[in-house]
């Protein structure tokens, strides 16, 4: 990768989710030189794992398609996948950044024909589907993956599978000798857009995610509904593969809770409201949803979506933080215990499936951040002069929905442009 060209007029964007892609593309479409790095093998991030967006119920892959086309067509952006920042030094307008690239074992000759995948035997949990399904040891991360290039799982390197994959490739695209690379580049500004991860539901012990098969997370639920998902879009519950028609949504699973994440993750209320519509879409009148909540946070003009869902007779709202879940051993149905605090009504409700609306945990590595920036208790990067020309974008900055994350990323692109324009003598 000796051909990375970067100067103090270059903007480095860390993270290829929707925020990072947006920041990179918006800056590039202003004529700026951008290096976009992504830790994983393809861009798209969390939104590429969603079935639909709220409140429009449109598909995230639609916007992704547009962004990919913008990215593919723009020569100002250089995309480096499987790459992370290992070191940063310097100051605004002149940073020296060391990038670490892990081997993909597949080079740009790959045509995505899939021959390698066909011959490889080893299977691993599919991270794209949050482990709900398996993928081969040679794989395309997903159908929309860009770069559209296969990846060899490092776990098959040194096994006969790796050799088989190499032999199956007619295009000399598999390079088993690929090594980790390190490159140090100069950039003027850095946009940090490493996004978020779903809060680890295992930690929310009262809900038995680790013990009860039919307790799943909201992000997993998205995968179950998605035609690209492990069930081909069928709402089959884990315990017995039966269709789940009566579904409970538990809000603030990990959010607004001093035991877990103390912040409100903002997106979960709308996400669950959206998911209630999936249930109705699949099963019409047979589909039932119950939302257990503390406050429904359908903020600003999209409150009308909440009003619409609330008007649906098959969707029930219970103001309650569910106390605990246990399992009806015979049916596998989770039983939710708690109290509806609007008037004090105790319940022990059985549902086919429970969806935990898990919180948004920033992926900003608080202790390992490569350079000193201001990170708040919640783990988000604060806007601070002291951060120099390191600007957070999207969910590195706050718990944001897609719309606000993109807004924030667009703003961050301008902040970075201000710095590189100054470096370029365009002043300001």
């Amino acid at each position: 990768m000796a051909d990375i060209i970067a100067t103090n007029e270059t903007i480095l964007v860390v993270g290829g989710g929707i925020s990072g892609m947006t920041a990179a593309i918006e800056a590039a479409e202003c004529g700026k030189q951008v290096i976009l790095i992504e830790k994983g093998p393809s861009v798209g991030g969390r939104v590429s794992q969603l079935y639909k967006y709220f409140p429009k119920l449109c598909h995230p892959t639609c916007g992704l398609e547009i962004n990919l086309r913008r990215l593919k067509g723009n020569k100002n952006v250089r995309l480096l996948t499987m790459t992370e920042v290992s070191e940063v030094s310097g100051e605004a307008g002149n940073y020296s950044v060391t990038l670490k690239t892990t081997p993909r074992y597949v080079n740009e000759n790959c045509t995505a024909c899939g021959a390698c995948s066909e011959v490889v035997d080893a299977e691993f949990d599919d991270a794209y589907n949050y482990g709900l399904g398996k993928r081969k040891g040679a794989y395309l991360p997903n159908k929309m993956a860009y770069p559209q290039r296969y990846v060899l799982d490092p776990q098959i390197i040194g096994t006969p599978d790796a050799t088989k994959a190499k032999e199956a490739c007619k295009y000399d695209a598999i390079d088993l000798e690929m090594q980790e690379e390190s490159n140090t580049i100069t950039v003027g500004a850095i946009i940090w857009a490493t996004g978020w991860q779903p809060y680890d539901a295992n930690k929310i012990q009262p809900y038995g995610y680790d013990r009860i098969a039919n307790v799943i997370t909201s992000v997993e639920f998205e995968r179950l509904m998605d035609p690209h998902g492990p069930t081909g879009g069928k709402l089959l519950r884990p315990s017995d593969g039966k269709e789940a028609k009566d579904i409970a949504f538990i809000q603030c699973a990990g959010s607004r809770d001093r035991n877990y994440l103390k912040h409100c993750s903002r997106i979960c209320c709308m996400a669950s409201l959206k998911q209630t519509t999936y249930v109705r879409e699949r099963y019409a009148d047979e589909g039932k949803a119950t939302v257990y909540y503390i406050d429904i946070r359908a903020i600003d003009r999209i409150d009308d979506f909440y009003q619409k869902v609330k008007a649906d007779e098959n969707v029930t709202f219970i103001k309650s933080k569910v106390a605990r879940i246990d399992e009806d051993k015979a049916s596998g149905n989770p039983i939710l215990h708690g109290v509806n605090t609007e008037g004090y009504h105790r319940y022990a409700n059985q549902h086919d499936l429970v969806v935990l609306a898990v919180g948004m945990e920033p992926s900003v590595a608080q202790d390992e951040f490569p350079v000193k920036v201001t990170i708040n208790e919640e783990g988000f990067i604060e806007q601070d002069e002291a951060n120099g020309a390191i600007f957070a974008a999207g969910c590195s900055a706050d718990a944001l929905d897609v719309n606000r994350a993109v807004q924030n990323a667009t703003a961050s692109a301008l902040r970075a442009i201000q710095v590189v324009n100054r470096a370029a003598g365009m002043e300001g």
Partner: protein
Amino acid sequence: MSKKEYSFYPGCSSQKGASASNYQVSVDSMCDVLDIKLNEIPDWNCCSASIGYAGGGVLPRLALSARNMALSEQAHGDQDIVATCAACWLATRETKERLLHDEALMKDTNEALAAGGLKVEAKQNVRHMVEVLIEDFGYDGLAKNVKKPLDGIKIAGYVGCQTNRPFGIAGESFENPKYLDKLIETMGAEPVENYDKKVSCCGGALIFSEPEKSHALIKDIIEAAYDGGADMIVTPCPVCQLNVEAYQDQINAKYKTKFNMPVVYYSQLMSVAYGKSGKEAGLDGQVIAARKLEEIAGK
């Protein structure tokens, strides 16, 4: 391994002729094997458990535990305080935490203690015996002393409340702590998987004032153990032990059940596995005889 010494707070129920006296017998046997020396806090007093609140206010209650800590500091200040009773441990540890957390409270407490000529710093660790076993010996260390593995016994590990919440054992979750299961396994017995009522409440001290309500809880605890195929229940808490074991007759009478489930302490399991006799393991103190343990102990 050299002898380990702790400042020991036995608590009221462990005294001779008290409800958990057999617990103390087994703890002594277990410590003997593990080469643990328990140095009793001189003139320790009751912690007031979790039921002293009506009569005592906050400060009088905390003062009780503070007095024990003060006495421990005087006698063996360089040792950790260890309690075998869940309520004793909880009250003492809670007092320590609150005193260290709140300067004003520390001042007030010392003012009160001064009336009895005492002074507390609350710097000693306050630990439950289970913590000592897990942290200072480790499962492997505990396994080394097993002479008679408890083969063929299936045991429901009933953790209960107060060794579990609000402090709990480090690294364990409130809802599904695994340490008791691991201890059972370490002694060669088989733990009941996913024991549903592992951390359910037995009614605690309210067994006395609200017996009916408590019996309903206990019934579920025993029933779940039977459902899991358990031969006996094991617990780290004297209140749990007493409540779950001693009221089975009454529960049977009320619910037409036929419960006859032995309830033992972890230390009894260990004593037997370590080759101690049934008497040394306090098995003669069982209201419901733990036959399978007795058999192994008798071999």
